[in-house]
């Protein structure tokens, strides 16, 4: 356990990607089985201990620390696990025996029930120092936030044992912690995990943003970048699965697809809901807002299936009829996909159309219409590109339309987490209901926590602290005086804010220290941009 706690601590303080990889690889080579498997599960956030929630930890602390002192500390530190690890009263009796291994701790956590968790966790915490408590709480509650993505952890694994990370990715989603087969293969030279006949996720090919410049349309094909969620439909044997971009199995959320793929295949596409917001009647897709009604649900009612019928707009084919197409050029995969379409039910699948243009300038003009069509922008794909995992330079580009901009007034601020902890970095802002001189009010329209530099963050933090007019727990209400130029991709109707509006991807575009608050935008002008 000490080694794992030390690994987490070292990862927190390491900024260099290469040093992080080296730390992970060193740990994985040195740690015994199954400890290292559990460590990989923790780093990739593949563990779930239902009896321990963040609220369990908070409740434990409430019995030991004054609630207000807890809240002020948590608010400053920005992380429940870290705050609890620091505030846990050190046991007074003689030096305690630390828990033997990570596996022991995992076994203990797995055996917890809601009822037994408080006493068992308390005993565990008493045996650890602050670093160890931090590690155990992170392990138990998930949400590591230590600057290590699942991909980085897998890359560290590949580096530790000299195997190919894409191969690791392919096995990964078909295996479960502590990944005994994976370690046997990579670390001990055993046979590769046998996944024949089981559906499994293949890592997505991703695109770089096209910042400036142009591409030659003789080399690149264009298609719309539809505003849904990227999915991979997989059928192996009789089983069909839907995976999200991160490789999560979301089949249960979209059960209507599980009997609709009539042959073995791995297909890449955009999950959308039927409608006319994107691209009008011919576009045939509702806004992202409509799709959101379907996301994240464990139980899907018949009404939901009827009101928000989903379909997949196909972009690419990775495997079909037992043949792997990934090494072939895009143009061949595209032709293959087109040939497959008649075999797929039109009720659940269609083909993402290509956008034809004689030259790049004409394509740019077409892209300008994307906003009216409520589409995110265009994709540019090299006609010779193989299907490769991740972002590879010059193969695929995403060419998003320019963001919308609106001037909003800062209303509330909250401290951030992780790297932004202890600074007021989460901002809620509003627009005016009418002329502020004539009784118009500000109503919140969104929340953003990015788009500013570290230096600006410090200034904003100071502004918030000096202009606080009220406090609601961790939230500070500030004087209505600072204007943000907020960039966002689109705006939708929503019940979340009193204004009835919600923005997609809002971020602070510019801080308008110079602009008087009453000159900020009206709710009505934001409402006019809705494309639901």
């Amino acid at each position, binding site marked *: 356990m000490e080694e794992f706690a030390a690994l987490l601590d070292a990862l*927190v*303080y*390491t*900024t260099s990607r290469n040093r992080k990889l080296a730390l992970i690889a060193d740990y994985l080579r040195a740690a015994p089985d199954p400890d290292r498997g559990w460590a990989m599960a923790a780093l990739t956030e593949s563990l779930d201990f239902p009896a321990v929630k963040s609220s369990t930890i908070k409740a434990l602390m409430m019995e030991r*620390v*004054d609630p*207000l*002192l807890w809240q*002020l*500390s948590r608010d*400053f*530190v*920005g*992380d429940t696990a*870290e*705050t609890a690890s*620091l*505030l846990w009263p050190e046991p007074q009796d003689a030096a305690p025996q630390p828990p033997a291994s990570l596996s022991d701790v995992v076994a203990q956590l797995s055996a917890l029930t809601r009822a037994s968790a408080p006493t068992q966790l308390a005993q565990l915490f008493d045996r650890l120092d602050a670093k160890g408590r931090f590690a155990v709480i992170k392990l138990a509650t998930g949400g590591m936030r230590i*600057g290590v993505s699942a991909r980085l952890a897998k890359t560290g694994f590949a580096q530790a044992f000299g195997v190919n990370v894409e191969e690791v990715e392919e096995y990964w989603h078909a295996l479960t912690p502590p990944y005994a087969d994976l370690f046997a293969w990579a670390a001990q030279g055993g046979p590769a995990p046998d996944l024949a006949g089981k559906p499994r996720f293949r890592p997505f090919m991703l695109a770089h943003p096209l910042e400036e410049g142009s591409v030659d349309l003789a080399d690149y094909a264009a298609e719309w970048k539809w505003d849904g969620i990227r999915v991979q439909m997989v059928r192996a044997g009789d089983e069909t699965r839907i995976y999200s971009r991160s490789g999560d199995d979301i089949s249960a959320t979209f059960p209507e697809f599980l009997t609709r793929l009539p042959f073995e295949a791995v297909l890449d596409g955009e999950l959308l809901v039927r409608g006319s917001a994107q691209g009008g009647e011919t576009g045939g897709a509702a806004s992202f807002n409509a799709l959101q009604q379907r996301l994240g649900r464990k139980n899907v009612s018949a009404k939901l299936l009827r009101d928000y019928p989903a379909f997949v707009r196909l972009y690419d084919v990775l495997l079909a009829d037992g043949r792997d197409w990934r090494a072939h050029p895009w143009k061949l995969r595209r032709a293959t996909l087109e040939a497959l379409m008649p075999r797929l039910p039109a009720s659940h699948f269609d083909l993402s159309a290509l956008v034809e243009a004689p030259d790049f300038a004409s394509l740019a003009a077409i892209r300008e219409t994307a906003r009216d069509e409520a589409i995110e922008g265009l994709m540019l794909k090299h006609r010779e590109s193989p299907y490769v995992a991740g972002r590879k330079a010059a193969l695929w580009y995403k060419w998003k339309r320019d963001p919308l901009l609106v001037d909003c007034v800062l209303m509330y601020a909250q401290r951030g*987490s*992780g*790297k*932004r*902890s*202890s*600074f007021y970095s989460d901002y809620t802002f509003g627009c005016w209901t009418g002329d502020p001189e004539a009784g118009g009010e500000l109503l919140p329209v969104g929340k953003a926590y990015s788009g500013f530099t*570290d230096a600006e963050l410090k200034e904003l933090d100071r502004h918030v602290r000096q202009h606080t007019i009220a406090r609601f727990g961790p939230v500070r209400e500030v004087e209505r005086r600072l204007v943000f130029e907020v960039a966002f991709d689109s705006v939708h109707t929503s019940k979340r804010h009193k204004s009835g509006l919600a923005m997609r991807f809002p971020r602070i575009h510019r801080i308008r220290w110079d602009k008087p608050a009453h000159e900020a935008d009206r709710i009505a002008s934001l409402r006019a941009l809705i494309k639901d």
Partner: protein
Amino acid sequence: MTAPFSWIRPEPWGIHIAPADVWIDPARAVPKALVTHGHADHARGGHGETIATPATLAIMKLRYATSDGAVPVEYGESIGLGGGVTATFLPAGHVLGSAQILLEHAGERVIITGDYKRAPDPTCAPFAVTPCDIFITEATFGLPVFTHPPIEEEIGKLLAARAANPDSAILVGAYALGKAQRVIAELRAAGHSDAIWLHGAMEKLCRLYEEHGIALGDLKLVSDAGKDDLRGAIVIAPPAALNDRWSRRLPNPVTAMASGWMRVRGRARQRGVELPLVISDHADWNELTRTIADVNPQETWITHGREEALLRWCDLSQRRARALALVGYEDEDD
């Protein structure tokens, strides 16, 4: 008969002693100021008369190149301010020359701590617990998460990092006044006798400390170093230089920072610190609460920092307390 303690008034830019028309650590130039210590947020230039300890005055002279109206007062010495107010300077244990100021008027005793700590420090006189009616304390680290470990542990981490990275410079960010000299003195106490390399901004203050009898051993300037001189060396620089162009001259630097804020991971990550050293010249939570209990005043006033939590502690321990909203004391780097 005037109301108790009406002679001492907290204003946003300092504490005013009305009968003597004197300010404590004013944030703007005034005719007559009492200064607790030499950090820039407490000691500003341009006052008509500056009353402080000789070491604080020497630091101010070094920083502002003027000593007009300097009135030195030794620790333990009392000085009449006029209007029936007497001031006594007492050690605060924060940095060289740092003082608490005991003010007495009409039989009432008020102590203003300035910044202070209780942990031992070879570079300055230790905090003197002194009885008073009103205790005006700082609260920079006034949250229970802030506990500063014994400095030997942190110096041990620094030396271990040096041993583990023989090809790297270990770059330590530390306040130029106080923290830098304390870290050097503690490194010497731990047996580290090799040259310690300084950023130029540290040089004069280190020399001033040595003139005040604090031996710092072999100090050299980074600007005089050949690149290989700095491999395996400890380099001390102001925090602002850590991620600055200046530090690019160092061989594979490991970035450390000596600060009480390093107790919180987020704070270390915000600054790109790889080796956090929890070393502070301020009282931590336990020192703050212990000091209030030790001094046991009728009332505690809190000047700056995380005052809400300390107010809460006073409330829970049934001690009268209030927060003063003083501006301008920011201690981001300590």
